[in-house]
């Protein structure tokens, strides 16, 4: 940025050429006075930049001085020549420099840093300058590039900041509304717990009623089971009676069998007696008649026993049926007992359930009351939170504004930087 | 009496034996004396023997014998040296009388007394009372009745009335020859008799009555068996009662309280007492039952023994009769009887007479050569006939042997062929032994004309029939040119016999134990098939295997793979008889099967069993003959038959094998199936020309199989033969209705009938 540097480079060689000549003049002055003075005067002019003055070399007798004077004259002429030539070169260089600077300025003004600097003169003295300018250009280019990148970054960051700010703002507002809602809900909850507490109280009351009802049911089932047991007991007694009866019938059967056997034998005996009678001829006639009579008797007995046997069979069937029925009774009674037992178990289950319910209702009632208090506290806290949130919301709005300003700035910067052509 | 009854009983057999020996010794010594060869030592010996005998007899309670011997002793002491003849005679007679007295009542009765008296009389004077000696010897042509065969007594009236009346119904007795021989008499031909006195030491009992008693004793024996069984039942009942009483006591204990304590104690006491009483009673009852059973057994045995009559009653007449018979034909004969003392059942004795007469006649008639022929053959002029009897286990064996020309199997064969008894092929296939057996066939006689003595309608076939009816057998052995021997075997006694009880289905039958070699299980692996006969090798012999049930046309028949089998022996033949069950060997009281069943095949008698049932006793000869017939292959005719492929369906392995063997023996090819379903399956795969099926089978029975086969068009022409043990007409009808072409009852299954059936159905045969 500094424009001084190229000039600096131009001054240094001039200083370097003047220094040795001054040193030589001084030393001659010391050897020959007057002549030397005259040479000194010329030399002083030289020193003052006046190279037109000359020492008359013929004038000076001393040969040394004269050679000096001649050398001074020659030097002055050489210097004049050199000066002219240097002048000429300075003119060219200056033109070159001007041209270069011109080009550079132009470039800078146009913002185009992409191109390279073309040197109008080929003067080697200008080369460092051009190189320096190139260097400056490069540095500039690099600077622009970096700036551009920074601007872009800034732009992005500011956008992000904006977004975050916006986000923040919206979330804050959402929070605010949520808190609002929560507060409302808490209000509702407060109402509901009140309701629950009331209901629980009601449940407890109902449970109390049910409990007494169930207790009555338990008593009824116990009574039912008692009667069932009685039924069963009766059935067992009936069974015993039946068993006794059938045993007796079996015994009758045995007796009848014996009678049957006797009758059968009697029948045979009578038959054989009749045969004997028949063999005895007329004498056995009466005998045969008696035998026949006996046989008829035996047959009657056999018939009777047959009837008895039928009766026994009937009794057997009847007792069997009775046994079946009593078995049925027994079965049903025990079934009833089982059902009663089941009912009893259910009822006691219900009872304990009801008891538990009532207890639970009471607990609920208590709990809901506690809850109400807690809810109220919560509502209080919530409204405080809401206030804070509101404040936060305002803050975040401001932040958003700043962020958007910043973004705009960043955008403008980026726009600016964009004007430099770097590539 | 010297000894207790028990010891006496024990010693009695020994006493009898030694006494017989002693008497023989004494008689021998007396004979020596008679010949004048007596030495003083011999005389001393004789006196000692007599003395010992007297002592023993007294000890054993034979008072009669003792008194007779005592008198003999006295007589011997008074024996004059010079002419002892008459007295010696008397002593010898006395000796002869002693042995029979062993079986007479101990006190010896009047006879003993009189004998002793007559001996004593001789001591006084040289001459006693010379009463008719001959009459006694002519008496006993027939056996004496009663337990005491005291021939010396003239119980002839009763005896002859029973026996002769029975014999006269049958063939005439051998000869009206006198039968002088007495059983166990020291010298058979001795014409000794007791002079005039009648030792009525026996009671005359009608033999029929004795038989009745024996039968009753047999029944009592069975009743005793039943009593033992009842006491077993009683013990079981008491055991039950004991268990119950334990429970009653336990119950009473549980129910006991202050109020009832006394009562409970009382009840307990009563129960204990009652229980111990019942057990004591039960024990006593059991003991009583078994001891009475033992006594019944003894009773039956004693009565059985008492009924035995010495064979000599029949045999004694033979020597003379044979001589007379021979004389008629110009032959000479010496007939010897051995073992005449062997006792047999009256019924046996009576039935034995005719067969023996016939056999002896046969010997004389056919067996013996004329003296000239004999001399030419290098034999003694007189032929010899030996009749010998002996007891072989339970069996009585009587042989009649002659040393005549023997029987030629060839001649028998030829004769049988000529008479049409057998066919030519059959004749060719007969073994020598079987050929000899032909002489027992009805209508066989090797003589062209009926001889004077034999061949009068009573042939050897009748002999066999008679003997078989007694549960016996008759066999013949002969060596041509040397001898012929007939052996009759029959139970010694008909009243008690050891039998093997076997079960067929539900019924029990008896096989004489002597004929049963052993019993066991038949391992099918041991059974082989020889020439189409199913047989088992048993003790180096092949026996046909037959199932007794089908053999007897009874149902049943073992279903077991290793059935129970009894190896039955009869003479040279035997059979492995398969039965459903074995009930062990038992001595049974044999009852006659009754007149109605007499002569029925297979049945020889019956025995009551303790459960009230009857065990029929089977005839071993019939079983063996039937087994042989069932097994006999008709191979001779089988050769020119067409070979059929037969499917045989029977679930009983035994029956199947038997039937298969039979079918194979007829030359057919047999495949077997084990039930109807199996048969039906096999029928599908094989091409059979005949289906033979059993009826009662599991899965699918024969009737249903028949129906199914006949309802299938493919098989409609396949002939079906049903072989069943069911013989009822309705069963047959059922089979025929189902479509069977023939119905054969297994029991009737014989090679010939089966062959005939197949011929009819399949046109097989020549």
């Amino acid at each position, binding site marked *: 940025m500094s424009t001084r540097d190229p000039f600096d480079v131009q001054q240094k060689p001039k200083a370097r050429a003047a220094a040795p000549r001054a040193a030589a003049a001084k030393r001659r002055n010391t050897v020959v006075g007057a002549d030397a003075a005259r040479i000194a005067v010329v030399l002083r002019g030289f020193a003052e930049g006046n190279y037109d003055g000359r020492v008359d070399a013929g004038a000076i007798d001393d040969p040394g001085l004269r050679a000096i004077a001649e050398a001074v004259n020659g030097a002055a002429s050489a210097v004049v020549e050199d000066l002219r030539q240097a002048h000429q070169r300075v003119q060219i260089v200056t033109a070159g420099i001007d041209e270069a600077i011109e080009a550079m300025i132009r470039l800078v003004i146009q913002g185009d840093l992409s191109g390279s600097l073309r040197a109008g003169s080929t003067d080697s003295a200008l080369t460092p300058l051009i190189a320096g300018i190139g260097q400056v250009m490069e540095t500039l280019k690099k600077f622009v590039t970096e700036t551009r990148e920074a601007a872009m970054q800034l732009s992005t960051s500011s956008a992000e900041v904006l977004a975050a700010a916006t986000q923040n703002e919206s979330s804050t507002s959402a929070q605010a509304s949520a808190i609002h809602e929560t507060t409302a809900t808490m209000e509702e909850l407060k109402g509901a717990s009140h309701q629950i507490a009331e209901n629980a109280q009601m449940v407890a009351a109902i449970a109390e009623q049910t409990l007494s009802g169930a207790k009555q049911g338990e008593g009824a089932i116990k009574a039912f089971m008692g009667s069932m047991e009685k039924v069963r007991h009766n059935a067992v007694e009936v069974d015993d009676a039946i068993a006794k009866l059938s045993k007796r019938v079996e015994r009758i059967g045995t007796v009848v069998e014996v009678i049957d056997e006797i009758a059968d034998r009697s029948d045979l005996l009578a038959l054989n007696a009749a045969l004997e009678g028949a*063999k005895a001829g007329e004498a056995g006639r009466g005998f045969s008649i008696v035998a026949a009579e006996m046989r008829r008797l035996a047959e009657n007995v056999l018939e009777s026993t047959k009837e008895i046997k039928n009766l026994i069979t009937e009794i057997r069937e009847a007792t069997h049926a009775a046994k079946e029925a009593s078995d049925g009774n027994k079965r049903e009674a025990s079934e009833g007992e089982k059902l009663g037992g089941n009912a009893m178990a259910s009822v006691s289950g219900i009872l304990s359930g009801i008891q538990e319910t009532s207890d639970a209702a009471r607990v609920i009632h208590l709990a809901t009351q506690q809850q109400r208090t807690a809810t109220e506290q919560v509502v209080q806290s919530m409204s405080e939170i809401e206030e804070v949130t509101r404040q936060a919301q305002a803050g975040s709005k401001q932040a958003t504004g700043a962020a958007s300003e910043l973004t705009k700035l960043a955008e403008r910067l980026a726009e600016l930087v964009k004007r430099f052509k770097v590539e | 009496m010297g000894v207790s009854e028990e010891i006496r009983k024990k010693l009695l057999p020994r006493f009898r034996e030694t006494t017989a020996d002693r008497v023989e010794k004494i008689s021998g010594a007396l004979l020596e004396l008679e010949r004048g060869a007596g030495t003083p030592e011999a005389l001393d010996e004789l006196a000692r023997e007599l003395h010992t005998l007297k002592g023993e007899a007294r000890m054993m309670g034979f008072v009669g014998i003792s008194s007779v011997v005592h008198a003999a002793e006295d007589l011997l002491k008074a024996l004059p040296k010079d002419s002892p003849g008459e007295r010696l005679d008397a002593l010898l007679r006395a000796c002869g009388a002693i042995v029979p007295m062993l079986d007479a009542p101990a006190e010896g009765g009047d006879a003993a007394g009189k004998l002793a008296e007559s001996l004593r009389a001789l001591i006084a004077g040289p001459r006693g009372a010379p009463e008719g000696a001959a009459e006694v010897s002519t008496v006993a042509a027939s056996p004496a009745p009663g337990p005491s065969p005291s021939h010396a007594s003239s119980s002839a009236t009763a005896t002859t009335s029973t026996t002769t009346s029975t014999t006269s119904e049958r063939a005439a007795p051998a000869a009206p020859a006198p039968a002088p021989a007495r059983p166990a008499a020291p010298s058979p031909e001795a014409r000794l008799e007791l002079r005039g006195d009648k030792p009525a030491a026996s009671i005359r009992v009608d033999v029929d009555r004795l038989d009745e008693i024996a039968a009753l004793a047999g029944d009592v024996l069975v009743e005793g068996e039943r009593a033992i069984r009842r006491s077993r039942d009683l013990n079981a009942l008491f055991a039950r009662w004991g268990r119950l009483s334990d429970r009653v006591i336990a119950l009473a204990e549980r129910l006991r309280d202050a109020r009832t304590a006394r009562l409970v104690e009382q009840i307990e006491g009563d129960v204990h007492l009652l229980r111990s009483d019942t057990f004591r009673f039960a024990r006593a009852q059991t003991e009583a039952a078994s001891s009475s059973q033992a006594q019944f057994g003894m009773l039956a045995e004693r009565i059985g023994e008492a009924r035995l009559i010495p064979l000599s009653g029949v045999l004694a007449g033979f020597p003379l009769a044979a001589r007379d018979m021979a004389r008629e034909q110009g032959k000479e004969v010496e007939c010897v009887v051995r073992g005449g003392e062997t006792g047999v059942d009256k019924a046996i004795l009576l039935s034995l007479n005719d067969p023996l007469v016939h056999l002896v006649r046969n010997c004389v008639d056919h067996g013996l050569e004329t003296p000239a022929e004999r001399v030419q053959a290098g034999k003694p002029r007189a032929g010899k006939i030996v009749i010998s009897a002996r007891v072989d286990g339970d069996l009585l064996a009587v042989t009649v042997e002659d040393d005549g020309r023997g029987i030629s199997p060839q001649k028998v064969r030829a004769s049988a062929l000529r008479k049409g008894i057998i066919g030519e092929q059959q004749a060719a296939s007969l073994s020598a032994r079987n050929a000899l057996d032909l002489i027992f066939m009805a209508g066989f006689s090797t003589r062209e004309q009926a001889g004077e003595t034999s061949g009068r309608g009573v042939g050897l076939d*009748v002999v066999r029939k008679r003997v078989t009816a007694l549960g016996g057998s008759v066999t013949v052995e002969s060596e041509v040119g040397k001898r012929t021997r007939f052996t009759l075997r029959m139970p010694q006694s008909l009243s008690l016999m050891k039998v093997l009880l076997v079960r067929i289905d539900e019924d029990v039958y008896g096989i004489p134990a002597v004929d049963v070699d052993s019993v066991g299980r038949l391992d099918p692996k041991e059974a082989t098939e020889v020439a189409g006969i199913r047989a088992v090798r048993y003790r180096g012999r092949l026996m046909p295997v037959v199932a007794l049930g089908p053999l*007897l046309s009874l149902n049943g028949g073992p279903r077991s793979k290793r059935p129970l089998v009894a190896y039955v022996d009869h003479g040279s033949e035997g059979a492995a008889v398969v039965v459903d069950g074995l009930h062990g060997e038992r001595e049974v009281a044999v009852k006659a099967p009754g007149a109605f069943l*007499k002569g029925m095949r297979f049945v020889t008698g019956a025995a009551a069993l303790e459960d009230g049932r*009857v065990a029929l006793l089977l005839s071993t000869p019939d079983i063996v003959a039937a087994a042989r017939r069932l097994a006999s292959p008709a191979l001779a005719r089988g050769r020119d038959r067409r070979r059929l492929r037969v499917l045989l369906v029977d679930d009983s392995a035994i029956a199947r094998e038997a039937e298969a063997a039979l079918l194979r023996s007829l030359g057919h090819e047999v495949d077997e199936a084990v039930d109807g379903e199996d048969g039906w399956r096999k029928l599908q795969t094989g091409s059979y020309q005949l289906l033979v099926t059993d009826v009662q089978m599991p899965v699918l029975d024969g009737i249903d199989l028949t129906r199914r086969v006949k309802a299938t068009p493919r098989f409609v022409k396949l002939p079906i033969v049903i072989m069943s043990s069911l013989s009822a007409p309705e069963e047959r009808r059922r089979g025929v209705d189902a479509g069977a072409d023939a119905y054969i009852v297994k029991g009737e299954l014989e090679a010939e009938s089966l062959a005939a059936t197949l011929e009819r159905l399949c046109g097989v045969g020549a």
Partner: protein
Amino acid sequence: MAEPKEAQQPESGAQASAPEAWFFCLRLLGGRYAFEAPLVTEVVRLGPLTRLPAAPAFLPGVFTHRGEVLPVLDIAQLVGQGSVSLRPSTRAAIVHCGPWKVAVVSDSVEGLVAIPRRQLEPPPAESSGVAEFLSAVGRDRAGAIAILDLPRLVETARARAVPAGSAAA
């Protein structure tokens, strides 16, 4: 209605002159059959039977009675018209025909009936089945009775059971 009269008349007459004959009456083949009562020695309950080997169906077996072995004769089987079903309670009439003693079984035993010989009529001229063995037909109060010729029947049974010649004479 006329029957009792008819039956009574001969009875009163019989007492005077013509002898009445006792017959043993049993039920068989669905009808009433009888035979001469003197042939019957005893009527017993049939004991457990043992089957006879190789026997015809009309001889279902044997049982013992009073120590005697008795064959059972089923007349129904003999004449080929069904069979008597044998139960433990079946009555067996022990009959004595000549030398033979058999137990005749029937469906049931009716008992003795008296019929005057004069009233007996000849049997129908049939000769198949049981008719072959009828000797007469009689009547009593209960109706007609076929009189069997039992000896011939038993004889026939014996002949069929033991073919002639196979029995020892």
